[in-house]
């Protein structure tokens, strides 16, 4: 404690203090200068950068999805509509504890495990700061409960979204098709432009017209600049660029005709196609059984989907464009016309039909469907009317297969019809080159006998048969079949694909033969014209499902129902001025004239009963409704 004894020098202590304090003052001034410099650096030098950062913070560009184009039938009947649906969505980046949030939400809305599971999957492939849907189709009560609790739920929002609705349910499932949620595969196949166009859009056309016209139906995405707070709540819209709604489609289809055709088919599996002869427009497009396309719109449940997928009746299968059936005798009118045009036969050609046919130098016996034959003097008219196989075998034996192939192609067989629907199958009409290429064996004369009857290798879709029929009715003018009549009110012109050259009297003879099918004493399709005040021309057909061995007799009793023959019928009407061509397929229906012809009759009866202006095209078209309401719910 020696220092205590030291004398305190007040003046020197004060000097020392002043000295130290002056240095401290310098320090204070320098450090304050540092702060001023820092403010200058932040607020003046880098002002622009930080202003941008702060704007990016609060201003977000939100896509405004366009309204999907509506689809109407030819009379303005709504086939595909948009309806508001409320979706519960989560922005992952704004949620601190996702599990806790989901648990809380489970108390407010109905949430099952599959919802959460699907949500987790969607979460994996989201874009940053994109709301990811957790539950679709909220009820009013659920919306209210979430709004009340919104304060506890940062990052959770209820968004109004327009979703597709098909008011006709099953009726147009195969033609109009349906939309569904964009899946992984579609997302990964998106180009950069697609990614931009689909911003804010959840759905994409999956099948049918919804798919083939996806580009037009989608529209152009709009956007808006919104101010949000740190929790992502939208506070106000600063700027908005409206989206351009998708194009409106008006179809050739007629809802009433579609209903009539569907009812006429009854519980049978099968297909009905009706085509406007003058344009190629498809008036009815029935594939039975069908399904409710609304199931797919916001994601079909696994149970519903497996029921549809595993059904023996394959309701998801589009029989009209994908069902490839042996067309059977329905090819005879076309073949007859081809034979006349190629000079293989004439109107005077007669064949004796003992009930069977033998090729020269061949022991094999080809049986006519009628055991005792059609008589000694069968000409083309009778050959068609009674569907005499021997007459056509005789012609085929004298005709080259490539000639047959050529004429069949001009009528649209063996290649895609070019209809504006996706995933169409081409069917098959064989040729020498095809058989050598596909089977590696040469063409045998017996193959020609099968081909002329629409059997053997020949396959055709119901749509192809309808196109073929319309081409006959049109006396050779082959229109591309078309579903869409007008896009945004602009009529789509019909397109001629081929013209089949034949003399008028050849067409007259085929018409006469087809008319005889319906009206002659032994005609196979009398039911097609029963009680109608106009003339119908048609042709029946039967397609074997199981091959019959040589010498064995066909016994339908012994075969299970699903092994029975398919019944076919093609027809057009009226004969003097053809308007409408129809093809009917009834799976396992056995007799074309018996089961399929009455369906065609119902279609004709309904269509021809319409006053002319009713079938006129675009009179009822109306401009698209603009849907630009702000569709966001705020807390």
């Amino acid at each position: 404690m020696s220092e205590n004894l030291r004398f305190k020098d007040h003046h020197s202590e004060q000097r020392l203090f002043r000295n130290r304090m002056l240095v401290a003052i310098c320090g204070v001034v320098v450090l304050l200068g540092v702060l001023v410099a820092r403010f200058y650096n932040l607020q003046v030098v880098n002002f622009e950068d930080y202003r941008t950062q702060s704007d990016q913070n609060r201003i977000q560009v939100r896509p405004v999805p366009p309204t999907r184009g509506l689809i109407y039938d030819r009379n303005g009947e709504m086939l595909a509509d948009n309806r508001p649906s409320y979706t519960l969505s989560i922005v992952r980046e704004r949620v601190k504890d996702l599990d806790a949030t989901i648990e809380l939400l489970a108390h407010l809305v109905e949430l099952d495990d599959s919802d959460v599971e699907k949500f987790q999957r969607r979460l994996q492939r989201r874009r940053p700061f994109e709301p990811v849907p957790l539950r679709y189709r909220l009820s009013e009560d659920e919306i209210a409960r979430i709004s009340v609790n919104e304060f506890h739920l940062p990052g959770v929002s209820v968004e109004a979204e327009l979703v597709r609705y098909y008011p006709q349910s099953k009726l147009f499932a195969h033609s109009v098709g349906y939309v569904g949620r964009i899946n992984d595969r579609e997302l990964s196949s998106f180009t950069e432009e697609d990614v931009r166009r689909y911003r804010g859009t959840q759905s994409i056309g999956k099948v049918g017209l919804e798919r083939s016209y996806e580009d037009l139906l989608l529209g152009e995405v709009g956007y808006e600049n919104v101010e949000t707070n740190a929790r992502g709540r939208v506070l106000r819209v600063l700027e908005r660029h409206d989206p351009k709604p998708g194009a409106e489609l008006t179809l050739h289809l007629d809802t009433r005709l579609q209903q009539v055709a569907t009812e006429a088919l009854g519980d049978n599996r099968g297909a009905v196609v009706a085509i406007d002869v003058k344009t190629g427009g498809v008036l009815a497009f029935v594939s039975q059984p069908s399904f409710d396309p609304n199931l797919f719109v916001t994601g079909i449940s696994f149970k519903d989907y497996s029921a549809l997928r595993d059904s023996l009746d394959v309701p998801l299968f589009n029989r009209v464009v994908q069902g490839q059936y042996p067309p059977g005798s329905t090819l005879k009118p076309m073949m007859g016309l081809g034979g006349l045009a190629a000079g293989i036969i004439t109107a005077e050609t007669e064949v004796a039909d003992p009930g069977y046919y033998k090729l020269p130098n061949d022991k094999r016996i080809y049986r006519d469907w009628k055991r005792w034959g059609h008589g000694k003097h069968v000409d083309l008219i009778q050959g068609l009317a009674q569907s005499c196989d021997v007459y056509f075998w005789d012609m085929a034996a004298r005709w080259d297969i490539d000639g047959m192939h050529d004429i069949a192609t001009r009528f649209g067989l063996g290649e895609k019809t070019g209809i504006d629907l996706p995933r169409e199958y081409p069917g098959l009409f064989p040729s020498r080159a095809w058989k050598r290429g596909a089977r590696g064996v040469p063409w045998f004369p017996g193959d020609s006998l099968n081909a002329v009857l629409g059997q053997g290798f020949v396959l055709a879709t119901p749509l192809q048969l309808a196109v073929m029929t319309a081409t006959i009715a049109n006396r050779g003018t082959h229109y591309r079949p078309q579903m869409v009549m007008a896009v945004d009110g602009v009529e789509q012109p019909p397109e001629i694909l081929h013209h089949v050259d034949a003399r008028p009297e050849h067409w007259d003879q085929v018409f006469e033969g087809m008319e005889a099918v319906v009206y002659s004493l032994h005609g196979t399709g009398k039911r097609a014209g029963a009680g109608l005040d106009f003339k119908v021309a048609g042709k029946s057909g039967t397609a074997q499902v199981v091959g019959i061995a040589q010498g064995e007799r066909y016994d339908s009793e012994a075969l299970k129902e699903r092994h029975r023959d398919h019944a076919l019928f093609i027809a057009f009407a009226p004969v003097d001025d053809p308007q409408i061509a129809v093809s009917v397929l009834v799976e396992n229906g056995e007799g074309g004239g018996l089961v399929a012809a009455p369906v065609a009759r119902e279609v004709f009866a309904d269509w021809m009963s319409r006053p002319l202006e009713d079938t006129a095209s675009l009179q009822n078209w109306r401009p698209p409704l603009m849907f630009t309401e702000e569709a966001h719910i705020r807390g």
Partner: protein
Amino acid sequence: MASRDYMHRLPDAGSSLRRPESFSRRWHIDLPLLLLLMVLAGVGLVVLYSASGEEIHYVKRQAVFMGLAFVGMVIAAQIPLEFYRRWSPWFYLAGCCLLVAVLFIGVGAKGAQRWLQIGGFRFQPSEALKLAVPIAVAAYLHKRSLPPSFLTVLGTLVIIGIPAALIVRQPDLGTSILIAASGIFALYLSGLSWKMIGSAAVMGAMAAWPMWMWGLREYQKQRILTLFNPDADRLGAGWNIFQSKAAIGSGGWAGKGYMQGTQSQLDFLPESHTDFIIAVLAEEWGMRGALILLALYLLIIARGIYISFMAQHVFGRLLAGSITLTFFVYVFVNIGMVTGLLPVVGVPLPLVSHGGTSVITLMAGFGILMAISTERRRVLF
């Protein structure tokens, strides 16, 4: 000259010729300091109203605290300096005991244990140490001959070190730094030799690495790393600084307008009404507003330094200097932290940030400053 006049009249104290005492001397109020503090407190309330999202109850609560703090200041100013000096060891010991108690029976939140709960009343003993430590150091040095000898320096460091270490354990690095700073300033002002200052600096630099390896907690390291690379983790550790810099920078020279700051009003700025309130002011009032606030602080500090120069004896000088410079450290650490110059430590912006305890301690400190400034010239041994 006025004070010299007064000195000359001292021998005549009690005579009728004595000039009547002025209001400020009678009530031990330093008017310029009082005025500056009131302006600052007013500015603080106005900024707080905006920063709290126009929640008037925050502002009312803070106004009540400020009122209490001003009362506390006036009371602190009335107490004779000699009392502080005499009782300083007891204040200090009591404070340290409370800190030890906090370690065992303290309550807290977010992993920190800083409060003592007595009935319904909660208080933070470390706040009391903010005053007890500089008083104790000044009193200790007051009795020593200056410049301090090596032993004296060691003794001072022990006085500073015990509470600082206890507070770091809570953990509360910000308060610990402020308390250590207040003691070290007193030591420095007492005339610590430059040689010792230099060797301390060298030792400090050498201790940096072991401190980093073993001394700092993970979140503290993270904050320091964030300082050097603020953009690395914007949504995590870098979020606060990223947002506060955006707030300040986007304010520009003129500011976005009162209550128009998008960063603060839309909740992008965290802690906007407490530690980060300067960002609200800088965003809404621009650099102009920030400069005005800095000027206010500079004036308060200048007044404090003036008071320390005018103090009559070592105790007053060291205490006034320490309180003033510590006040500056508050300002510098807070603004440095919010502008991204320093790592994030929990130091409020004095008299502007929302929060009661720190206001009361600060104002009590200013009360002592006033006691020093208005002390009658007496011989004090």
